[in-house]
């Protein structure tokens, strides 16, 4: 029933565009001619397909360009092949603003030109590699030819504002707090923000390039370090993709443990964020209470799973840690304790009028903008976008438990605060349900080297939202291409929208309420 829209859509397309279907379940691949690339996006947009991810790869002398769309929990990968001599493709960013930075990334890394792109400035490219050279092309050596000192990227053409009393504030890349680096350029009048432009890419570590040639185990380790706070999420997405390519399924017990790990990661991050949001409006009580609760939570991670942030617990084919019966009791007791603590602390916050004054109406993100930019996770859900992979495209173990997806529609910082609070509660229930699902069994399925050229698309709901991970293997169990799309890639652009008409001193709390990953974005 669910895939009906796909059949209808294909029928409708047949008048216009010829589509070659490769059905590699569970994800359909639709291949079209490159000249229809933009036209397809227009029709897809009319059908309300959501733009989920875009990436390219070089195969022999040609380039394969992909876009992943989603509707009603069904994903399709749109694919085209373009020649290697002067690669060019009509841009989809004119139709889908969400595709904007992704296409610029592909342009910088592969040298594929997106014609008609509304913003053809470079994005991931700073000054670390020369013009007319493209790191993800196969002839580009992983070591590159770096200069002794990479010069700063000085000539990025930021948008200017002119007029009486208009001034500019450049911030970063090194920020005042203990946070990741990036540059923000504000245009302001008095305290009011007229415009904000993000300039990211500072923590680009060449993850896609150094992934090539890795073994599955080594790739899982790397995926676990795309964004330190999402180590479970990215590792799971990458492993799902690899397992799909290798055509193996993981044992039920491993799936349940993965679920528990992912929900624990979600809770740990939400605890940290709620405290930090309050701290950014100088409400230190909440920061102290929530960092305390987070610390207790992380200590239990270490006690039960052997790592505070749960790194390297997920491995290709299963998990590297087990949960004993005693551990289950410990976890359930901990959940009871946390619920009690939260009922006290959250109530104290809810009744605090000074906090209310700062969080309500600030950082407003309209539902239409959230939808147009494909905002994900708690950012989308605070602005009426209900999508959640666990609910809409369920995968093991979420296909066996009830997943509650909280929704808020006010779109302000308070909404993003309350969505996190509700998600903590939902995840606590989920962990309890998952523990009840734990049956005896193996933790790992034996690995089987995938066939040459086999590919996989791993999609999971990380704590920030949907993660899409693409993997292609070469002939001898090595990675030929890895592209992880962190939810931050889609959430960062909406920060530029939600700060408008706020005051400059509220930028930190606006930013924290979104909490994008710099590392996950820059790769």
């Amino acid at each position, binding site marked *: 029933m669910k895939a009906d829209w796909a059949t209808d859509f294909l029928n409708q397309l047949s008048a216009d565009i010829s589509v070659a279907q490769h059905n590699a379940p569970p994800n359909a691949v639709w291949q079209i001619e490159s000249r229809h690339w933009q036209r397809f996006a227009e029709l897809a947009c009319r059908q309300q397909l959501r733009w989920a991810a875009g990436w390219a790869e070089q195969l022999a002398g040609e380039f394969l360009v992909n876009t992943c769309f989603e509707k009603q929990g069904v994903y399709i990968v749109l694919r085209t092949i373009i020649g290697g001599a002067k690669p060019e493709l009509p841009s989809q960013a004119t139709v889908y603003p969400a595709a904007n930075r992704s296409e610029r990334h592909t342009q910088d890394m592969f040298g594929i030109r997106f014609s008609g792109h509304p913003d053809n400035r470079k994005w991931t490219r*700073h*000054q*670390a590699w020369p013009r007319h050279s493209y*790191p993800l092309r196969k002839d*580009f*050596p*992983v*070591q*590159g*030819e*770096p200069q002794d*000192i*990479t*010069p*700063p*990227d000085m000539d990025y053409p930021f948008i200017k504002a002119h007029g009486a009393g208009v001034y500019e504030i450049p911030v970063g890349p*090194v920020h*005042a*707090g*203990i*946070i*990741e*680096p990036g540059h923000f350029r504000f245009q302001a009048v008095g305290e009011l923000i007229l415009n904000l432009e993000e300039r990211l*890419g*500072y*923590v*680009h*570590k*060449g*993850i896609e*390039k*150094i992934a090539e040639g890795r073994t599955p185990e080594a790739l899982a*380790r790397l995926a676990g*370090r*795309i*964004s*330190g*706070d999402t*180590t479970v999420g990215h590792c799971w997405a990458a492993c799902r993709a690899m397992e799909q390519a290798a055509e193996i399924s993981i044992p039920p017990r491993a799936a349940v443990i993965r679920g528990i790990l992912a929900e624990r990661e979600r809770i740990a991050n939400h605890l*940290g964020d709620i405290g930090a949001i309050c701290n950014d409006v100088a409400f230190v*009580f909440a920061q*102290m*209470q929530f*960092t*305390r609760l*987070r*610390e207790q939570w*992380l200590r239990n991670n*270490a006690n039960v799973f052997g790592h*505070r*942030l749960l*790194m390297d617990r997920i491995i290709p084919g299963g998990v590297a840690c087990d949960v004993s019966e005693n551990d289950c009791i410990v976890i359930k007791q901990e959940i009871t304790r946390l619920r009690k603590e939260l009922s*006290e*602390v959250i*109530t*104290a916050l809810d009744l*605090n009028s000074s906090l209310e004054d700062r969080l309500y109406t600030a950082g407003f993100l309209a539902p239409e903008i959230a939808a147009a930019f494909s905002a994900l996770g708690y950012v989308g859900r605070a602005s009426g976008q209900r999508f959640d992979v666990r609910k809409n495209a369920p995968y093991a173990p979420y296909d066996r438990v009830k997943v509650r997806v909280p929704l808020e529609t006010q779109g302000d910082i308070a909404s993003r605060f309350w969505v996190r609070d509700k998600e903590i509660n939902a995840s606590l229930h989920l962990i309890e349900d998952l523990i009840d699902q734990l049956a005896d069994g193996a933790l790992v399925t034996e690995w089987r080297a995938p066939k040459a050229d086999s590919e996989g698309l791993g999609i999971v709901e990380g704590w920030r939202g949907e993660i899409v991970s693409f993997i292609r293997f070469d002939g001898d169990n090595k990675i030929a291409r890895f592209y992880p799309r962190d939810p931050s890639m889609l959430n960062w652009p909406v920060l530029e929208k939600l700060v408008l008409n706020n005051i400059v001193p509220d930028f930190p709390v606006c930013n924290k309420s979104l909490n994008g*990953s*710099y*590392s996950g974005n820059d790769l």
Partner: protein
Amino acid sequence: MLRLFRKILKTGIVTERVKRPGDDELERLGIEIKRHIDKRFSGSIAIREVDAGSCNGCELEIHALNNPYYDIERFGIHFVASPRHADVLLVTGPVSRHMQTALLRTYTATPDPKWVIAVGDCAVCGGEFGVSYASCGAVANVIPVDVTIPGCPPTPLALIKGLLGLIKK
């Protein structure tokens, strides 16, 4: 408001005693400059944290140093917003090439005498990322490093032990 005060009273003080590391442990942490700092800083240091390309894992654990369990400020260690106010740069990550100049400038902006602590496996030896077209690898490849604290990421306790070694209690 009463709820808030009740919660504060009920929570009490959760801060834990940290055992000072033994001499052998200090040596393992590679801290030979301890006595210099004792002399110059009288037991207090101001730290500027610089993420030069990390995955943010190390930052999460450095943040934890300020939670009520560790309360790092009681040892006279505090984080400052500008390198110009700092005695010590706490640098994480492999140094991405895009951050190389920013790190060099931050180092120059820090007044002498200054120390650099490389935090986490990536900062210590390049970690999972190593040296590539996009990464300079270890912090020592870019600026002089005095102390290293390995771990992926190092636990708050490992961080405290590494930091405590820098000052006289």
